C-alpha cells in the first residue's frame, strides 16, 4: 500500500492525485497530497511510476504497515535506495534508459507468458 509522500521531494503537481486508479489521495492544505483513503489502495505502484520526483513509496504489503515501519521512514528508504526504484527499473524519469527497448524477452519466455488455471493441462496429463 501507499505509505509515504515525501514533503521535501513533492513539487505539488497533483499528478498522483489524478492518476491513482482508486482515488486514495487528496490535496492537503500545503498542496502536498495526503493519503486519505489508504484502505482503497490496490498496491499497483502506478502513483510511484508517474511521480516525476520519486517522492512516493508503495510498500509491497496489501495491508497497511505499522506506524514505526521502515517503509514510512524516508531516510531509511533513501538509504536502502528504494525511493524511486520502480521508476528506475522501468526507465521513467530524466537520464534513465527506457525499459521496453531493453526487454528482449529471453528465449525461455517466448512461449505463452502466463499459463494459469491448471485444470486443462492436468486433465490431459
Amino acid at each position, binding site marked *: 500500500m501507499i505509505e509515504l509522500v515525501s514533503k521535501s521531494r513533492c513539487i505539488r503537481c497533483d499528478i498522483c492525485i489524478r492518476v491513482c486508479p482508486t482515488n486514495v489521495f487528496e490535496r492537503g492544505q500545503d498542496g502536498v497530497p495526503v493519503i486519505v483513503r489508504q484502505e482503497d489502495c490496490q498496491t499497483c505502484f502506478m502513483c510511484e511510476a508517474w511521480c516525476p520526483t520519486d517522492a512516493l513509496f508503495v510498500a509491497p504489503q496489501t495491508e497497511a504497515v505499522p506506524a514505526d515501519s521502515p517503509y514510512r521512514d524516508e531516510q531509511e528508504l533513501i538509504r536502502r535506495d528504494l525511493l524511486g526504484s520502480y521508476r528506475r527499473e522501468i526507465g521513467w524519469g530524466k537520464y534513465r534508459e527506457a525499459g*521496453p527497448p531493453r526487454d528482449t524477452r529471453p528465449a525461455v519466455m517466448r512461449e*505463452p507468458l502466463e499459463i494459469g488455471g491448471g485444470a486443462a493441462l492436468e486433465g490431459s496429463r
Partner: protein
Amino acid sequence: MRDAPPTHVRPQLSSSDNGVTADVDVLVIGGGPAGCWAAIGAAESGASVVLVDKGYCGTTGAAASAGVGIWYIEPQEEAREQAIASREALGGWLVDRDWMHRVLDETYAQVGRLADWGYPFPIGEDGTQVRRGVQGPEYMRRLRRQVVRSRVRILDHSPALELLATPAGEVAGARGVRRQHGGEWRVGAAAVIVATGGCAFLSGGLGCDVLTGDGHLMAAELGAEFSGMEFSNAYAISPTFSSVTKTAFYRFATFYTEAGVLEGAGSQRGRSVIARALLEQPVYARLDRAPADIEDDLRRAQPNFFLPFDREGINPFTQRFPVTLRLEGTVRGTGGLRVGDEQCATTVPGLYAAGDAATRELICGGFTGGGSHNAAWAISSGTWAGRGAAVYARGQRGIAGASNVRPAGLAGLRPAGTPERSLTPATVTAAVQDEVFPYDRNYFRRADVLNGSIERLDDLWQRTRSGLLGVERGKSAADVLRAREAAAMVAHARWMYASAQERTETRGMHKRIDHPELDPGQQQRRFVGGLDEVWTALDPQAPRSALELAA
C-alpha cells in the same frame, strides 16, 4: 505508414455545478487497453466519442501495472496454424477458428500501428522489432496519448453507475458520478461500448481491484447475455504478503511445505496441487530452477515481479517465501458478455463489448487467456467494437429522441423494498467473497457445494436488490459506487455458478471433482443471463474448432 488525418469532431461537454453532460455518437465505458482501442477505433470511423473511467485512463485495469505478453504471430501460415492448433485442445475445443484468424490478423495490424506511434519495442537478434509483449505503464501511457490525439474526450474518475435506455430497450447512453470534481455526468449516446474488464472480486491481485464486473451488471439490466461464465476460476500465484500476481516466472519455482518439497506442484501443470496443499498448510516457493544467468533478462521482461522481493530484502532465487493463490475470476478466466456478431455487438441494440468484459472463449476456449490472448483480444475486439459502434451510431442519427430515455440501474442504486440497515456494500462484498474465494468451492467444484453457494447467493441477491441503500438516499459518490460494485459481484457469482452447475464435466479451467473427465457430448458453449431469475442455455451453434471440422 502514416495514419489518415482524423475526420471527426471533438465532442462538446456542457458543465454546470451539477456536473457535465454531453450528447455523442459513441460512449466508451472503461479506460484500459480495450476501452482505448475502442475509443480510437470509433473516433477514426468518424464518431464523436466520450470515454469514461472510474479511475484514470492510463493507469487503470489489469494491464497498466503489468508486463503483458501479446498473442502476436507473423502472418505466415505455418506459424498461425501452430498458434491456433496449440490452443484448441487447451481450450477444451470451444474456440472458433475463424475468430482466431481474425484476431491474429487485427492484432498484427494494430500492434504495427502501435509501433508507428512510437512504442519502443525491443530489437531482436535479427535486427527487427520484437512485438510479442509490452510493458504496461509505457503501453497505457501511450494509448492514452493516442486516445487524446484521436479527439476523444476522456472523463477520469467518473464511474458509470447505470445505462440509459429507450422505451424499445435500445441503449441510449449512461450516467455516473464525478468523484473528484463532484456532481454527476450524463452522456447521451447512440452506441455504448462496455470495456470495464472482468471481475476479480476485490481479491487484491495486481491492478485488479477496479475490476468488479460493473459493466456486466449494467448490461444485464438491459437484458444482455453472457457466455462461458463457468470459466471463471482462474487463480494466480502471488507471494502471500503481496499483490503481485505475475505467475510466469513460477515456471522456475520449486514449491515446498514445512515438510519439504511439495511433489507435483507447479505453476502450470501443478497449480491444483498448490491449491489442495493451501487448504491444509502454508506453501512456499523458491525460483531455484532458473538458469544461472537469466536474472537480468527476467528483470527486464517483468520489473514489477521483483518489486516485492527487492523491497522485502528477499532473494527469490535462493530464499523460500510463502505463496498464496488469488482469485482472478473472469479477468484471467474467459467468460463475459456474449458477442453476437463480428463487430462485438451484444444482444442489446447499440451495446457493444470489448476486452475482458466480453467472452474470450472464441479465441481461448475454456482456458485462461491471461498474459497474451487477452491482450490480443483487447486490441482486436476493441477496434472492432469501436468501428461497429460508430457505424451503428451513424445509422441512428436523427432517429433517437432523448426525451423518453430512462435510467436502467436497479440493484444497489434503487432498492426495490425497505432499506436494510445491516446490509452495506462491505457486508455484501464479504458474503460474495466467502462463496467465490475458497479453493474447495470454486477451484474444485462439485454439485452439492455449488448448490449451497447458489442458494445463499440467490438469497443475497434478493436482499441486495431489495434493501441495499442506493443513490436516492443521498449517499456520497464513493458509497454509491461501492453499492453498485457489490451488487455487480453478487450477479457475477450467480452467473458463474449457474453455468458451473450445468457443466457436468471437467473442461478447460472448469474442474468438477464429481465429474473429473471431459465429456465429448458437452463440447458446446453455454450462455447465461438474468438478474432476479438466472437462466442458462446451450449455444445452439457448435464451436468451429478442428475437432468439429474433422468430424
